């Protein structure tokens, strides 16, 4: 029986050049002051893709940074997964465009997965399945989104929170490795589908003059049906009731106690949500790294952004035990354990 393990070898990232600062937001009509925005979100600035800059462009740059950092030859990649909710086209898959863009071999599998804040965990799960079943030896997992393109500039329920960015993770088959990607735990509640949504633009509700019409809600936020909508109260309620259960289920599946977790990597929604979750989980704050101040909520990229910082700062030692928990749009959530090798 094969004992090949899927192991994370390296992580890199890329951000667009432009930044949306709290001062920029405060200057918009009806906005809070820059200080109020920081106090509420913990976010200083949000990277923002240029009009002609797509999520796949950001992901391609993240992949190039990964190749440069790890010394890995793109020709050695035999599968690429791109997790995005802001694809280049309805079809083809952006991963196929990325295969050409990155000079990956034609003998390379390529798929997009459409998941948001749980997407990195889903990507790792697919990577483990492909590698440990012997189908793939070296996999490139890309995450990238340009949510800011969905956001109306006068909808402060979301424009203060989201940023654009991309990450690239190299996952290798490692024969007889002591560790690697561990157990996974998933959850879905489609009752939350309309709580975080871009309602128009697909086939259910195609774009039209009606969907482009802007309206102001009771809180004074402006959006059309083609913009991102978030019911913050319901999403918050979902997160703080679901994540503790998900964490307990993950620990049980792994046979770990909470004390045995060296780092808990939570989806970086915003400081308010993270502080609430850390309090609810009764988990040590120093073992729950934050990285959102200069990023905002970058959807499926938030967890690998944290992982990158842990890795680059030398805090991740072989044998370190990590728990990753992503949760959000769908509602969808997923957790996994990693034993660093």
């Amino acid at each position, binding site marked *: 029986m094969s004992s090949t393990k899927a192991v994370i070898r390296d992580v890199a990232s890329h951000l667009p050049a432009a930044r949306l600062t709290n001062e920029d937001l405060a200057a918009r009509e009806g906005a809070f002051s820059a200080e109020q925005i920081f106090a509420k979100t913990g976010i200083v600035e949000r990277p923002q893709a240029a009009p002609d800059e797509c999520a796949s462009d950001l992901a391609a740059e993240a992949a190039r940074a990964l190749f440069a950092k790890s010394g890995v030859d793109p020709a050695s990649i035999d599968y690429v997964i791109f997790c995005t909710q802001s694809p280049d086209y309805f079809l083809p898959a952006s991963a196929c465009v990325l295969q050409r863009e990155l000079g990956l071999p034609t003998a390379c599998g390529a798929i997009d997965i459409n998941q948001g804040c749980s997407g990195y965990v889903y990507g790792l799960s697919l990577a483990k399945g492909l590698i440990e079943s012997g189908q793939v030896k070296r996999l490139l997992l890309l995450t990238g989104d340009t949510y800011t393109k969905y956001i109306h500039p006068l909808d402060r329920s979301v424009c203060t929170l989201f940023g654009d960015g991309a990450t690239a993770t190299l996952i290798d088959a490692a024969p007889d490795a002591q560790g690697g990607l561990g157990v996974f735990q998933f959850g879905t509640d489609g*009752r939350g589908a309309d709580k975080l949504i871009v309602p128009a633009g697909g086939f259910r509700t195609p774009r039209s003059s009606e969907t482009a019409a802007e309206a102001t809600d009771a809180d004074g936020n402006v959006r059309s049906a083609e913009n991102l909508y978030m019911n913050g109260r319901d999403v*918050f*309620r979902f997160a703080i*009731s*679901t994540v503790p*259960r998900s964490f307990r289920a993950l620990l049980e599946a792994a046979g770990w106690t909470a004390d045995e977790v060296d780092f808990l990597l939570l989806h970086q929604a915003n400081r308010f949500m993270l502080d609430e979750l850390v309090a609810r989980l009764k988990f040590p704050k120093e073992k729950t790294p934050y990285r959102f101040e200069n990023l905002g909520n970058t959807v499926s990229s938030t967890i690998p952004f944290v992982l990158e910082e842990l890795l680059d700062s030398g805090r991740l030692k072989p044998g370190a035990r990590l728990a990753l928990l992503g949760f959000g749009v769908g509602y969808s959530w997923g957790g996994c354990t990693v034993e660093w090798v």
Partner: protein
Amino acid sequence: MTLDDLKTEIADIVEVEPAELSDDTSSENLASWDSMATLRIISFLDEQLDDQVEPEEAQALTTFGAIVEFARKRGIIDAG
């Protein structure tokens, strides 16, 4: 969980000592029981139920007494 466990959790959310909670304690007579505390209470009950409290049920949970009754009815705390 026991009634005392529930009392400790709710007291923690509304920032009082457990002994200060009575059946009549509500957002009307306790300043620290604000809309955020209400949201935390409903989320706590969601977590315990492993499901979402229905909106009409959630609207009725305005006093500590109503929360205890709900928790008994739904098996979150031992009946008795």
